[in-house]
């Protein structure tokens, strides 16, 4: 029984990484920009956060460094894609490849480094409840903040005027421009916000989830987060659910190994990737469904004044 409680707790932990990144990418895509550089941004943020904590010992600075790294890279991406109208997919890929190389390069010094002991977080009273307590209430505060953020994002997108403007920019930037909205600045803001969140996810990875640095430690989570926004049809609540689902699948493999299931570890490790493919295939089957939810201008260049 305890094992299941631990599984749930681990799922929340793993899912949070995906959730934060995916919510950031959702903001991007609502404005019509696809940022394939999620993997690179998360890696650079992971090493930035880790290095910051190694040098200063403060988690706050670590998270700030991660957010900063993500935002900076996203700003670079945004300038190229929004102002110079470079191909979004190619530029995102370039960002990913660059991020992989750059993080490996900078991270060489930190491979063997250790950071101070990670504090344990418990919510008083709630965490003493048998079963549910250890499952749900002993997480890093960011886990709960992520859920709150998702709720806030739903409110922002559907109840606030700023969110409406963002959605309109993603739906039809030409019309938004004709109505006088600064489409490019709005998109840049969305891109930077998305990058900041990916950065937060990356630093969460290296500071909370597995507190170490290894080259390529994001291991595809950035790409899974991208897939998540698609099969959650760009809705924050579904993104959160999907993230926990995938976190669960990832944790399942350890659970199964621990339970002595007779499958080779590599096949179990394939689970999250195969699951992504399967869900992607099932969701994409119905193009109508996607069309009505997808911000119509995703991936397309926008030329103001045309």
């Amino acid at each position, binding site marked *: 029984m305890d094992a299941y409680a631990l599984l749930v707790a681990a799922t929340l932990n793993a899912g949070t990484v995906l959730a934060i990144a995916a919510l950031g990418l959702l903001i991007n895509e609502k404005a019509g920009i696809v940022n394939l550089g999620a993997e690179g941004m998360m890696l650079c943020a992971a090493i930035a956060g880790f290095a910051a904590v190694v040098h200063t010992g403060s988690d706050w600075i670590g998270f700030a460094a991660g957010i900063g790294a993500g935002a900076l890279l996203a700003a670079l991406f945004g300038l190229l894609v929004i*102002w110079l109208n470079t191909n979004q997919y*190619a530029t995102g890929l370039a*960002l990913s490849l660059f991020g992989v190389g750059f993080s490996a*390069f900078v991270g060489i010094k930190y491979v063997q480094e250790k950071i101070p002991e990670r504090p344990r977080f418990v919510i008083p009273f709630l965490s003493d409840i048998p079963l549910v307590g250890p499952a749900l209430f002993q997480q890093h505060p960011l886990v709960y903040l992520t859920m709150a953020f998702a709720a806030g994002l739903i409110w922002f997108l559907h109840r606030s005027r700023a969110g409406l403007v963002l959605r309109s920019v993603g739906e039809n930037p030409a019309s938004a421009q004709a109505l006088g909205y600064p489409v490019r600045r709005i998109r840049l803001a969305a891109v930077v916000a998305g990058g900041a969140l990916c950065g937060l996810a990356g630093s969460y990875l290296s500071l909370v989830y597995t507190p170490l640095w290894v080259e390529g430690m994001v291991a595809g989570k950035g*790409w899974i987060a991208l*897939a998540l926004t698609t099969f959650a049809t760009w809705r924050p609540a579904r993104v959160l659910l999907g993230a926990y689902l995938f976190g669960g699948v990832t944790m399942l493999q350890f659970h199964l190994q621990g339970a002595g299931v007779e499958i*080779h570890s590599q096949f179990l490790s*394939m689970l999250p990737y195969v699951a992504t493919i399967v869900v992607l295939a099932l969701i994409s089957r119905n193009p109508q469904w996607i069309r009505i939810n997808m911000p119509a201008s995703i991936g397309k260049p926008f*030329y103001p004044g045309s």
Partner: protein
Amino acid sequence: MFPEFVTNVRHSRESGNPVTFSERRWIPAFAGMTVTDGIIIMKYETFNRLKLEARPEPSRVWSYCSPLLALLITVLIGVALFSALGKDPLRGLQVFFWEPIKSGYAIGELMVKATPLLLIALGLAVCFRSNVWNIGAEGQFIAGAIAAGGVALLADKGTGGWIVIAVLLAGTLGGMLWGGITALLRDRFNANEILVSLMLVYVADLLLGYLVYGPWKDPAGYNFPQTKTFEAVTQIPRLFAGSRVSIGLAVALAGVAALWVFLFRTRAGFALQVGGLAPAAARYAGFSSRSALWLALLVSGGAAGLAGALEVAGPIGQLTPYVPAGYGFAAIIVAFVGRLHPLGMVFAAILMSMFYIGGELAQSRLGLPKSLTGVFQGLLLFTLLACDTLVMYRIKARSA
């Protein structure tokens, strides 16, 4: 990437067309754009000195010069990086650009690295020109390596030289199979090929790990995760004595010629490119987007698989978890820097090999980490994308 929605019913009109449609890949004749000068990234201030003005037609001069300018900028950044790391920048430049070409042997080594890059890039060019974003060439490379290795392991001392053909064929088919999975999922389920092919890279990598840690592990290998070294007879023949260059180079160059003919002199190649440039026009002309999709993924999967076979039965000589060296991703950069043109990609492949070899030399001679290669490669693609703007726009001083 996401399913192409060819038409948009809303009745909206722009000069030249009564109805909008969702694929806009050309620059309208007037697009007086203002740009905030993005050169200085750190600050958020807008520098309104310069203006981007659309050219009436893409500039041919800049089509050729843009990669050169991108290289120049990358080199400059590299010099700055070397200085920042406390190393002599000139020495760094020498290691990256002179050492790899200074002797016949060095050029041979350059070709050894360039061959798989070029092969994979040729396949990727077919894909990218038809707007199929195959990012998982690395996975197809691994699948080809696995298939080739499997066949090579079947050889024993008495096997004849024909096994080489079988090895290469197996590699090609293995890569095609892996690419075909992506094609199937996109064809039947509309699944985004970027994400599917990428996930398959991880799957292929884990599959390789399972094989070399498990059933294919060399019993006499001291428990290292590797297969036994392939019999000498499976070795890909060398092209020249005294160099490690294999016939793979000849195959790659033949591929360059074949791609050129395919793209520019055949209707099938034309149909593929129209599908990538204007899907509505391809539909109007009756070109099948399904066959374009399958052709693109099978060709690029096969090319990547062949490259994998050449690597594994050539320089590496066995299967290890380190077979995937990132060529599949580097080839994406080769394809872009080479402008998706067969001849351009030859030069781009050579350039990228110089980065690889330079990175190794920088590690051994200057004590710099090998991951520098990845940094430069990523930088090159970035700067290329930025410089490509000049093909479509010219920079003008904005009158006050």
